[in-house]
């Protein structure tokens, strides 16, 4: 149980959620909400990790995505196993061979940023900045990969569709089943089209601002601890 957040190190992957209203003297309402969530988790030891099919695919297909990237870019890429931390952050990037590489596995073609020209998700931008800071590297690649969905997840999707469309007792019609499989497998799309790389340069100035924001976040977390302690005293 943690109640003192004076030296709390934020996870690189959560940094983005704390950065709304960066540079302002007061934390934004969004950031405060995120911090309350974090405080609850840390104080009571209950993680409210969001489980979703998107996350499941990301976890299960991480290596497949790295392999796809390695093939397309002709670059042998290893999965980083080292966790690093500094005074503000901690994190474990996917790869740090000369540059930071962060892999994201898209759920399907509609969520794959094929035509995007810049990173749309600011959280990923900050995640990469955090890793560059931790590994002291000047460049990062945010890499989206489109790989086949594992069989287990296809079965889960089929099961979900059966229930949603009222085929729970008889099973999906063949045509619909084939459509689901077709939409969740991508061997028919050339590999080169299934890897999208966004280059992100290191922004040291932004990181200094982020560190100031982290200090404010720590203070706020401690305020929440005081608030909670006050509740306890009142109750006693």
């Amino acid at each position, binding site marked *: 149980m943690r109640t003192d957040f004076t030296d709390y190190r934020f996870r690189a992957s959560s940094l983005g959620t704390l950065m709304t209203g960066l540079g302002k003297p007061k934390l934004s309402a969004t950031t405060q909400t995120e911090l309350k969530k974090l405080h609850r988790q840390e104080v009571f030891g209950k993680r409210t990790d969001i489980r979703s099919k998107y996350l499941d695919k990301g976890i299960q297909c991480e290596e497949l995505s790295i392999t796809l990237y390695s093939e397309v870019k002709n670059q042998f890429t290893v999965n980083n196993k080292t966790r690093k931390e500094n005074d503000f952050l901690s994190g474990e990037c996917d790869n740090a061979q000369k540059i930071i590489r962060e892999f994201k596995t898209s759920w399907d073609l509609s969520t794959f940023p094929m035509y995007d020209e810049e990173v749309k998700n600011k959280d990923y931008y900050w995640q990469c900045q955090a890793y560059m800071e931790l590994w002291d590297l000047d460049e990062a690649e945010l890499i989206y990969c489109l790989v086949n969905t594992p069989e*287990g997840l296809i079965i889960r999707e089929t099961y979900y569709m059966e229930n949603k469309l009222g085929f729970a007792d008889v099973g999906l019609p063949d045509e619909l089943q084939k459509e689901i499989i077709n939409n969740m497998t991508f061997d028919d799309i050339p590999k080169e089209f299934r890897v999208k790389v966004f280059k992100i340069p290191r922004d040291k100035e932004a990181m200094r601002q982020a560190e100031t924001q982290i200090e404010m976040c720590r203070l706020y977390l401690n305020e929440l601890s005081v608030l909670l302690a006050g509740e306890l005293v009142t109750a006693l």
Partner: protein
Amino acid sequence: MNEVAKIKMEKADVSIFSTIESFEHWQRVAKMISSSDIVPKAYHGNVSNTMIAIELANRIGISPFMVMQNLDVIQGRPSWNSTFIIAALNSCGRFSAIRFVFEGKEGTDEYGCRAVSKDSEGLILTGPLVNWKMVKDEGWLSKAGSKWKTMPELMFQYRAASFFGRLYAPDILKGMHSADETMDIIKPTQKENHSQQELERLNSHLDNCDTVDDVEILEESLSGQDVSETVSKAIAAKKSELKLNLQ
């Protein structure tokens, strides 16, 4: 049933593989059963699997169809459905219906479950405790697609029943594990799986290396990385091979 058939049935009760006659007879039965559309996929059109199911059914005294419905073949290992194990233990007549007792504080490593029953003399039979510590230490939780992450309560009960069965009624399970258990044992851990894919990736890159320089470039790209011993060895071996070719 005529006398010959009766004799064959009696022999089959011992083992369908015990005599040529018995084997031939049950082979014919297996052919018939396996050609049915309603047998599970692993047995449909597969006389050998069906013969094994019949042999097992004879040994434990249930219908072959029940065995086929409840015996999964996972990567070549026959494994019972957990629900079947519970049903078999409950109906064997040796114990009262199995109950599951949860212990420890939820959210801690000590939280877990054990199967409990009473024998015919009223003595309490307590199965081994399966708790989060065991689940983590055995690496069941970290398996890719592990059901322990999504349905822990159910998995605790299934595993506790399986342990109980192996302890108090090994003759019913015939030494076989439950399907969930086999999945946990057989499926490589995510980490092992990752290492395997990494190695495959490396081999494909090494195949494209024609000179020692190529390998050294690849080696250089890994400087400062925490690479596994297997990766280092594979690179060294390729280098040696190319050097030898040069000589």
